[in-house]
């Protein structure tokens, strides 16, 4: 019972911090829109219209939702490093709740932040690229699945790093390949074999594909396969994350 109360306490703290950092909320929403118009507009003009159905911007939109979710959540791990630096983490780690609860509280907190931004972007998508209200809901569900795995990666790395700079270097080094190899910006069909293999090995690809299926009805893999892969990815990352939190030192 006190574990649940503790879980709620940690989530509530994360949520309040998120609410109070307006710049974080605004940039989380502004950035995807910039990508959609500047990248989507520029590249869209030179994309072969035979390779994709509909406009490039509509094609890009699910990838941008996934991008917003994965960047926001992985960098969320930075707050663990920061909390430890300013000694706030100590208060939580000496409390009589398990590290697993602390981890899940943080996952929930990070996922909530990501859900709020994803919801706003998806609703904007209704106006910008004509997504259906049902698409908004299923899109949110898929964003949540992606968020759980990505927050876990961020928290795992955060548990090991003592400096903000070290964390940032490693995360940047890791997240750009994950993003560029996810087929968020281009279609899966017609890639050369080496690239296609790398894209297929990337779990984020399946989240982007599911998102594309849910929002604009264009998925490359069966949705069930997409969800299975993302679900497995979540389970593995959560396990790794709880292990990292249990051995985390102050």
């Amino acid at each position, binding site marked *: *019972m*006190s574990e649940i*109360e*503790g879980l*709620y*306490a*940690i989530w*509530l*703290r994360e949520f*309040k*911090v998120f609410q*109070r*950092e307006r710049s974080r909320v605004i940039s989380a929403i502004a950035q995807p829109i910039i990508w959609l118009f500047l990248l989507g507009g520029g590249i869209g003009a030179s994309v072969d219209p035979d390779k994709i159905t509909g406009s490039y911007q509509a094609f890009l939109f699910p990838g941008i939702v996934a991008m917003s979710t994965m960047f926001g959540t992985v960098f969320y791990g930075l707050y663990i490093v920061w909390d430890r630096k*300013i*000694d*706030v983490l*100590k*208060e*939580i*780690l*000496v*409390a*009589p*709740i*398990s590290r697993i609860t602390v981890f899940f509280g943080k996952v929930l907190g990070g996922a909530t932040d990501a859900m709020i931004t994803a919801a706003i972007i998806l609703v904007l998508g209704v106006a910008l690229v004509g997504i259906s209200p049902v698409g908004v809901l299923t899109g949110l569900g898929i964003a949540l699945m992606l968020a759980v795995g990505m927050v876990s990666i961020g928290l795992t790395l955060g548990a090991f790093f003592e400096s903000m700079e070290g964390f940032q270097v490693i995360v940047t080094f890791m997240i750009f390949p994950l993003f560029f190899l996810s087929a968020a910006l281009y279609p899966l069909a017609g890639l050369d074999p080496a690239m296609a293999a790398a894209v297929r090995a990337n779990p984020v690809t399946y989240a982007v594909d599911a998102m594309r299926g849910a929002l604009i009805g264009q998925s490359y893999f069966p949705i069930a396969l997409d969800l299975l892969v993302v679900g497995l990815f979540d389970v593995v990352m959560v396990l790794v994350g709880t292990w990292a939190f249990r051995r985390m030192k*102050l």
Partner: protein
Amino acid sequence: MAETSPRTMPEGVAISLRGLTKTFGDLTAVDHIDLDVKRGEIFGLLGPNGAGKTTTISMLVTIRPISDGKALVNGFDVSKEPHKVRASCGIVFQEPSIDTTLTARENLELHARLYGVPKPVRRQRIEELLALVDLKDREDSLVKTFSGGMKRRLEIARGLLHHPPIIFLDEPTLGLDPQTRQYIWQYIERLRKEMGTTFVLTTHYMEEADRLCDRIGIIDHGKIVALGTPKELKDFLGGDTVVLQMANPPLDAFKALPFVSKVDVREGAVWLSVEKATANLPRIFQAAGAEEILSVEVRRPTLEDVFIRHTGRSIRQPEADAGEGWFGQVMQYTATSNR
């Protein structure tokens, strides 16, 4: 609360240390400490910087693993049952660990939830503690707008919030004004009286240790070099000193008194080392006979004297050359405190 009830230790012992040791590479920060702290006791750990006070507390609250020996807190082994130890303890850290992105009240609510303080009690206790540390009018302000002293007070309120059986206070009243310190001492004494709470505190303030602690352990180079009640420690120095200003002191008459251990003449006065000076003062006057006494001064040894005797230096002295880290933070506290 069944989980926090004592076990495996003799009744009446809150903390039991046997050969407790902490090494960092070649450095032995805590060196085979044996100590029992009784239930309901206010125990003070006094020592210069780097003596091992904070390291000892860190091990007892399970933040740092112990290198050797055994430590039982509330009957639970810190190495084997850290979860139960944590449920038994309240901690006020030396470094600020208050969340500055939350308000004062939110910090207390967070803590109450983390420690499972039941909802009906929570509100009332938060009110009580906000009043105690004089932050009621700022309860809804973000802590980042607080001065160092205000953060410190909030931190103390937080440590007391869940009424744990054992509370560790690492330099609790550093940078606080005398009035707030008085309030906090009173609250500590009240908690001890009403709840039987055990307190372990470290402090640099000698008068705090003297006024508040039932027993004091002086720690130096990771070892406890002296242990006892403030009175025992002071008596160990050989009692009081009586300084008499007089023109023709009858030195032989003074030497003949059974309770006088030493007679000195310096700075134009007679210095007598005396047991129970106040009780024996009339007999000293009798021994002076017809000789006129111009002035009398009774000096009691202070804990500061005890400290110097055992560690070879003043407790405040090391602060002067400590550059950063601990001392830097202390200075920040003092500098940012507006009270």
